[in-house]
């Protein structure tokens, strides 16, 4: 009998091939069409923004791990995804030092302050985006025109909607080109087509469920449709809202972030509805033209509450059983 060194561990002895890395890099892969589209639309500057964001996020992750004396997790993909999402959420002409500040806010202030991956309450990329938006409002809202050669900038369709009303906004944008992505906006949010392809990959790999994105999009669609029907002159049609701004990027890639969304189906539906309604309210009546970032961050804050509601329900069921037996 040959001697083998037996090792004992606990069942099950077969495990899924998925790991944190595979989940994160698949999300990155799903963002690839939007990234490619951003480079196609906004040129090599977009590539530079992507690289700077990813590199500085990974760098800050390494730095924070070292300071906190934790095993290095900078290559587990979560910092990569955060950097990529941040890049896709800013205009392509943003100064590079602002990107580095944004990355620092995302990794240090939004993630490691709460305890690192899995413990953050708010989506790091969105916190960074909102931080940049309120700190450098001018730079964050001067959108380069696609295929521009001389850094020509203009307002985004949502910005036009806010300042010049429905008619001007509808004139500025042909819905089909909005769907393909040739409009002004943040790097990754312009092309609905690329985002939908990426989302399809996430659904196929079962990394996200339908509950959050569909309740979110559905509630935005329904809400804007109702007001469009009441007064078409004051409110833009729902399809306009669907293709403009960061709605699809937010719905499929930010609101569905595993760490900062509720765990139960019921919670996810509430979360999606809340995000959708807040987005619509901010877009229709708020001070900012775009509302999805704020909406998701606000609902992120409610996630512990939604989860604890679910938890208390569970406890109530089992407590009853414990008492009777």
């Amino acid at each position: 009998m040959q001697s083998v060194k037996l090792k004992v561990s606990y069942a099950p002895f077969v495990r899924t091939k998925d790991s944190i890395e595979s989940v994160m890099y698949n999300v990155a892969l799903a963002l690839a069409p939007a990234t490619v589209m951003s480079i196609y639309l906004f040129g090599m500057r977009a590539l530079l923004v992507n690289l700077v964001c990813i590199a500085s996020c990974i760098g800050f992750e390494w730095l924070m791990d070292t300071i906190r004396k934790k095993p290095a997790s900078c290559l587990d993909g979560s910092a990569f995804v955060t950097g990529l999402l941040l890049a896709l959420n800013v205009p392509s002409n943003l100064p590079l030092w602002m990107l580095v500040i944004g990355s620092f806010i995302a990794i240090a202030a939004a993630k490691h302050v709460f305890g690192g991956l899995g413990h953050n309450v708010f989506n790091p990329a969105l916190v960074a985006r909102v931080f940049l938006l309120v700190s450098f409002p001018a730079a964050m809202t001067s959108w380069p025109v696609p295929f521009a050669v001389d850094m020509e900038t203009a307002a985004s369709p949502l910005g036009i909607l806010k300042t010049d009303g429905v008619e001007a906004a509808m004139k500025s944008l042909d819905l089909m080109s909005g769907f393909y992505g040739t409009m002004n906006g943040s790097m990754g949010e312009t092309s609905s087509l690329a985002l939908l392809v990426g989302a399809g990959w996430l659904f196929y790999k079962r990394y996200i469920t339908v509950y959050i994105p569909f309740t979110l999009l559905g509630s935005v669609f329904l809400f804007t449709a109702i007001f469009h029907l009441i007064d078409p002159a004051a409110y833009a049609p729902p399809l306009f809202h669907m293709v403009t701004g960061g709605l699809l990027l937010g719905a499929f890639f930010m609101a569905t972030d595993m760490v900062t969304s509720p765990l139960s189906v019921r919670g996810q539906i509430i979360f999606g509805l809340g995000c959708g309604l807040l987005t619509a309210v901010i877009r229709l009546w708020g001070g900012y033209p775009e509302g999805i970032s704020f909406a998701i961050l606000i609902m992120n804050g409610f996630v512990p509450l939604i989860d604890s509601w679910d938890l208390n329900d569970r406890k109530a069921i089992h407590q009853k059983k414990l008492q009777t037996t």
Partner: protein
Amino acid sequence: MISDAFIPAVSSLGAVALALGLIIHFVSKKFHVEEDPTVKLVNGILPGVNCGACGFPSCGQFAEVLVETRNSAMTCPVGGADLAAKLGEALGMTMAEPKPQLAVLLCQGNNDVARQTAEYLGIQDCWAATQAFAGPKQCRYSCIGLGSCIAWCDFGAMRLENGLIVIDNDLCTGCAACIPACPTGVLVMQDKKASRYFIACNSRDRGAATKKACDAGCTACQKCVKVCEDNAIVIEEFLARIVQDKCTACGKCIEVCPTKVNCIRLENDLKAVKQKQAS
């Protein structure tokens, strides 16, 4: 110009703050809970580590119950005789002195002397390991050696050395919090004495099996029983045990013990020795 924006903001926020302050004031008055100053005093004397050794979940609760019942039999094992005296002074009564105890590991099977079976790669916790199998050491009565008790000890008295727990007698307060952390029951409480002899083995296997599994195991050879003049050593389930009340610490048993790593151990308690010398 500035005052136009300033005055309404300051006055409205000030009004809100004033209103809230008043509410807090009334609530704290109305729902004020009268606290017994003796409880506070007693709580201040207690060590405040909430170890649970007294049977109450926290020092605060111990203090409340003590002040209410004035039960002189209630003791804090962690604080010992000093604390009992202080408590008695504060309450104007004589408190019972707790019997000082120590956690003792009945095993010397470190990685050099104990034979191993299979490598364990699950959750590094003794209880978790025993759910997977009988433990990485061949002797199933031994210290598993993953150190769960370290985390359960509030006083930092445990450390892991070469696959075996070592207890720092100076830091151990005898609170017994570590006992449920041990799945094999190799960790026990013993009375604190200036010098103690004990059989540092927990194996209930027959002598031959014990010997096969570990060099430091008690094989129940009876030699120590025969040599003991105080009849302080008994053999139960193939394992010798020293009856602490009868043992006079003469040390004859250690000389005759034939195991390679002497399974009988002498432990001098420095604190207790000093106390004895002082008195």
